[in-house]
């Protein structure tokens, strides 16, 4: 059942048409990603769903609410992390959590929230003394204070190191298990791929693709990359006997093979290596990514 419906949403800022009539539905309990380069219209779209921005045209429903009306009941059930969240500098971390909690009817245990977001040790620190990553974790934590039914996270892992990013993914996945619906924007394709049930790829205010990340990649029908190393150099032509190979490169004993169908190629590599008693090192098969999907659809790389 769709919990969020967006139909023909349009928004312009002066001369710039930021969102050009997009439509999608988000299922209850889904992690839905809106991905795309900077300036694609991601933030505008999510802010219209939060009720923070007024749409120019279209129909938007979140639960039973029209976000634009800004009803209290609506604000009670949603949790929002803004892309650039300012929090009172002179408050301590726990004071900020407690203050924002106190604005809601339903709340969650602040101590536990601090723990989930690895902020327990920082709770007595002033917000202004936090590092970029810590500040970001706090601003996401503030989206959870009311144990919301629907979470809107606008680039939740920006400015985080890879470890913190993975921790954040775990928190978001866990919230899905607790029955929350999550809408997030990101320009990290890897994040969308790992985390989202479905993604809408948005570019220049239009949705250019919408599906499960794996489906998008599958539909791309892209070449897969086989990489390996050999101690001795052998003629790459040996591997080309398999007809499925699109392209082969060799540089200082490192081989890269592009193919649509890796299985026969792998067999061939193994056969050649056994026959010549060569030690195969660092063999891996790399799938296409959402980045490749974006390049395929737009003809340019994500910025």
């Amino acid at each position, binding site marked *: 059942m769709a919990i969020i419906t967006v139909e023909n949403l349009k928004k312009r800022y002066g001369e710039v048409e930021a969102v050009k009539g997009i439509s999608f539905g988000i299922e209850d309990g889904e992690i839905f990603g809106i991905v795309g380069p900077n300036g694609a219209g991601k933030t505008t779209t999510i802010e219209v769903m939060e009720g*923070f921005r007024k749409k120019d045209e279209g129909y938007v429903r979140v639960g039973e609410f029209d976000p634009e009306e800004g009803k209290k009941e609506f604000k009670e059930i949603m949790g929002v992390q*803004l892309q*650039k969240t*300012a*929090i009172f500098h002179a*408050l301590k971390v726990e004071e900020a959590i407690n*203050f924002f909690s106190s*604005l*809601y009817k339903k709340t969650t245990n602040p101590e536990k929230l601090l723990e989930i977001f690895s902020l327990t040790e920082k709770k007595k620190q002033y917000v202004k003394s936090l590092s970029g990553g810590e500040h970001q974790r706090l601003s996401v934590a*503030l989206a959870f204070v009311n144990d919301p039914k629907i979470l809107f996270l606008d680039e939740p892992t920006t400015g985080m190191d890879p470890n913190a990013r993975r921790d954040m993914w775990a928190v978001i996945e866990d919230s899905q298990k607790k029955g929350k619906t999550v809408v997030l924007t990101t320009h990290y394709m890897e994040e969308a791929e790992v985390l989202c049930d479905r993604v809408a790829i948005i570019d220049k205010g239009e949705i250019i693709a919408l599906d499960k990340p794996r489906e998008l990649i599958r539909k791309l029908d892209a070449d897969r990359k086989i990489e390996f190393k050999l101690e001795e150099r052998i003629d790459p032509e040996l591997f080309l006997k398999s007809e499925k190979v699109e392209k082969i490169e060799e540089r200082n004993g490192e081989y890269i093979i592009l193919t649509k169908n890796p299985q026969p190629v792998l067999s061939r590599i193994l056969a050649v290596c056994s026959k010549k008693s060569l030690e195969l090192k660092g063999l891996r098969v790399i799938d296409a990514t959402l980045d490749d999907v974006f390049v395929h659809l737009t003809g340019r790389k994500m910025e």
Partner: protein
Amino acid sequence: MKKFAKVALIETKLFFRQKIAVFFTLLFPLFLLFLFGSIWGKEPNYFSYLLPMLVSIVAFSNALYGVGAVLSFYRESGILKRIGITPLPARTYIYGLLASRFLIVIFQAVFLFIVALIFYTVKVKGSFAALVIVLVIGVLSMISIGGIVAGFSKTYEASIAISNVLFTPLSFLSGAFIPIFILPKFLQTLANGSPLYHFIKVMQEIMVQGKGLREELVSLSVVVGCLLVCALISAKTFKLKGE
């Protein structure tokens, strides 16, 4: 109402964590009180002149820098935007902030009065109730000027600039630093339009000459007029969302 009180509380806490604000609102006036007290404290009625000046300057500077600039900062940095996402209306937050600043200034007025009472002598010839009424209306009137600053400035920097532009001439013409009667005629005329000047004048005349509110209708209408006009304009011009 409970949330309103919570906002006022947290804003008061935030206020006391700003060292510069605490210094100028609370410590500096106290320093001036003792400085001037040690020089002219023996003069009869001296504190009936000094206290209204100190209190009005505290109220005015707090309105400009503690209300106008702070609101501009909150809007520009996105704090009001963040508040607006919660079930608490951003307007309620703003009123909570105003309440906190109002109470801080009233507290400081009472505090200065008590200190002066303990170390020197303070005479209130007129009605004490009238004095309190004027104090309340005057402080509200000053705060409404802060609202104008927030309403007209697009950025925090602009709000500081506007505050500086307002603070210097208005406090100069208030009679707080130099007596109005030694100024040239046209400046005296200008002073007559200043709410700060009338706020001080009414309090002084109640304390020194024992005048009643009825005799101060002109000055009171300037102060109340400023309050109404500024409150109305700032409600109209202040946008919760920045550009």
